[in-house]
């Protein structure tokens, strides 16, 4: 495992001041999440060296990119940068764009062109002109171009924001594949929670140029002190392992820490890992073992914490398993039923999950 990426930046951005400090792990996807205009892109540009913060410290793999008086220029930082707009070079075809940043002398552990072409499905585009590509195709080429410069850190600035929904759906699986196949750490700026849920392992919440929380996904999602829980579609994501498949019913059993889920058939083999998303509004609570119903997923859990929302509802933080030591789960219940059931922190409850969204293989 590579050492973490350490960031500390202070700058005056006009509308507000930037003052952030966080660490991103040396592998996996770290999402910088926050509303538009909160300073996320500036942070990314500072890491790349495209913007020089007045005061800053950027240390990647124990290698200082910016510290005190030292400021390594952009072209000396081993990054890949994917901009919101693909920004392909108009005077080069797809192959010319892909190979632009390839080192003149290949190293043995370099990512080869063929593999990137295959990973991003670019084989049919290789001799085309950027102008003849669709938005989604262009962004895939831009991602490939960044990867082939053999970066030690991939920076992505809302790579899907400028695309229509169809192109987003086209690219997301490629991004998931990147995440699975490459050990490259990725810092991913977005204001779209769905992208975070599908891709991120680690999340840094940014608001008005400040870090308001940082940590592993599930931990930040289920922290009652944080604004994520107040979102209408508050949810948690977790990794689950396939433990059984029942072809006659078309069902698959998935195991997470503290319980198992039954979900409708999908691709995938036993022992594979898949990412799940469970929305707080799809989880209901009961004091007693529920009678058999059409809701297939009943689990034991313990109430760990709760948070009142503005609309007379309560978001309950649960730990799966009798003792509550398993994965975190959120449940949105009305205050009325909360009081009716006499729910309270520390209580052991039964959880019914109406639906589990599968976010692709891991």
């Amino acid at each position: 495992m590579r050492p973490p990426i350490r960031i500390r930046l202070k700058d005056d951005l006009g509308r507000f001041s930037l003052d952030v400090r966080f660490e991103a792990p040396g592998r996996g996807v770290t999402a910088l999440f926050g509303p538009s205009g909160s300073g996320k892109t500036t942070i990314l540009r500072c890491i790349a060296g495209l913007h020089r913060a007045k005061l800053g410290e950027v240390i990647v793999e124990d290698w200082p990119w910016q510290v005190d008086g030292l400021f390594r220029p952009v072209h000396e930082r081993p990054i890949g940068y994917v901009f919101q707009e693909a920004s392909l070079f108009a005077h080069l075809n797809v192959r010319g764009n892909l190979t632009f940043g390839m080192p003149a002398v290949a190293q043995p552990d370099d990512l080869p062109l063929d593999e990137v072409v295959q990973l991003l499905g670019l084989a049919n585009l290789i001799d085309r002109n950027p102008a003849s590509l669709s938005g989604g195709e262009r962004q895939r080429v831009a991602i490939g171009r960044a990867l082939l410069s053999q970066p030690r850190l991939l920076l992505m600035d809302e790579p899907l924001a400028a695309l229509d929904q169809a192109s987003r759906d086209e690219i997301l699986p490629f991004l998931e594949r990147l995440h699975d196949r490459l050990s490259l750490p990725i810092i991913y700026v977005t204001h779209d929670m769905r992208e975070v849920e599908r891709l991120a392992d680690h999340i840094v919440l940014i608001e008005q140029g400040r870090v308001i929380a940082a940590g592993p996904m599930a931990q930040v999602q289920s922290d009652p002190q944080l604004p994520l829980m107040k979102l209408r579609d508050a949810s948690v994501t977790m990794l689950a392992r396939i433990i059984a498949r029942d072809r006659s019913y078309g069902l698959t059993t998935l195991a997470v820490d503290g319980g198992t889920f039954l979900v409708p058939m999908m691709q995938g083999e036993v022992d594979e890992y898949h990412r799940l998303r469970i929305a707080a509004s799809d989880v209901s609570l009961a004091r007693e073992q529920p009678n058999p119903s059409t809701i297939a997923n009943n689990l034991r859990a313990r109430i760990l914490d709760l948070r009142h929302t503005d609309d007379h509802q309560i978001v309950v933080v649960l730990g799966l398993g009798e003792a509550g030591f398993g994965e975190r789960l959120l449940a949105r219940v009305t205050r009325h039923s909360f009081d009716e059931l006499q729910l309270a922190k520390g209580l052991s409850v039964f959880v019914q999950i109406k639906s589990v969204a599968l976010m692709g293989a891991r």
Partner: protein
Amino acid sequence: MNLAPDIWLSLWLTIKLAALSTVILLLIGTPLAWWLARSRHMAVDIVGSLVAMPLVLPPTVLGFYLLMILGPNGPGGLLAGLWGQRTLAFSFTGLVIGSVVYSLPFVVQPIRNAFVALGERPLEVAATLRATPWQSFWRVAVPLARPGFLTGAILGFAHTMGEFGVVLMIGGNIPGETKVLSVAIYDFVETAQWAQAHLLSALMVVLALAIILSVSLIEKRIGRQAL
């Protein structure tokens, strides 16, 4: 009708002057255009205005100052003294210097505009792909600004060919040295040699038409490529 040999001389001299001036203009104009397009220095506005001056100044004014500078008592004369000449005025070298000054805005402006039109992004992308500023310039900025270079080169060439006032002021009328086509035509008219004047004038019209047509065809073709 037989054209006198000094007409061929004039034609050759004109093309030589225009070609040499264009090469020098591209060499000087490219870094100048790059600096004007990208620098935020205060001097940009002043230098930009100076470069544009020949667009508004009467050629005679420009020619007059060039004569002062290139003449025996100016720095040009001192320079010429180094290789045993008295003056840079009334010489081919003087004409080239005059043409470069006179046609500078026609070369710098299209290249500067092309560099400005690039925007920051392609250069940022190049930098994130490990290109040094020098490599970014040659591998990204110059190829992307190609239409600006073509337009600048053609306009510079054409404008130098059509130059008259400045030549008259600093070049005079020395066959094989400073007597370019435009001056030759003037000569023929002065001496009432209408047929010769007609012929040369028609030649210039055809050349001008061909040049302007080629500029618009090049721009059209590049435009299509970019689509």
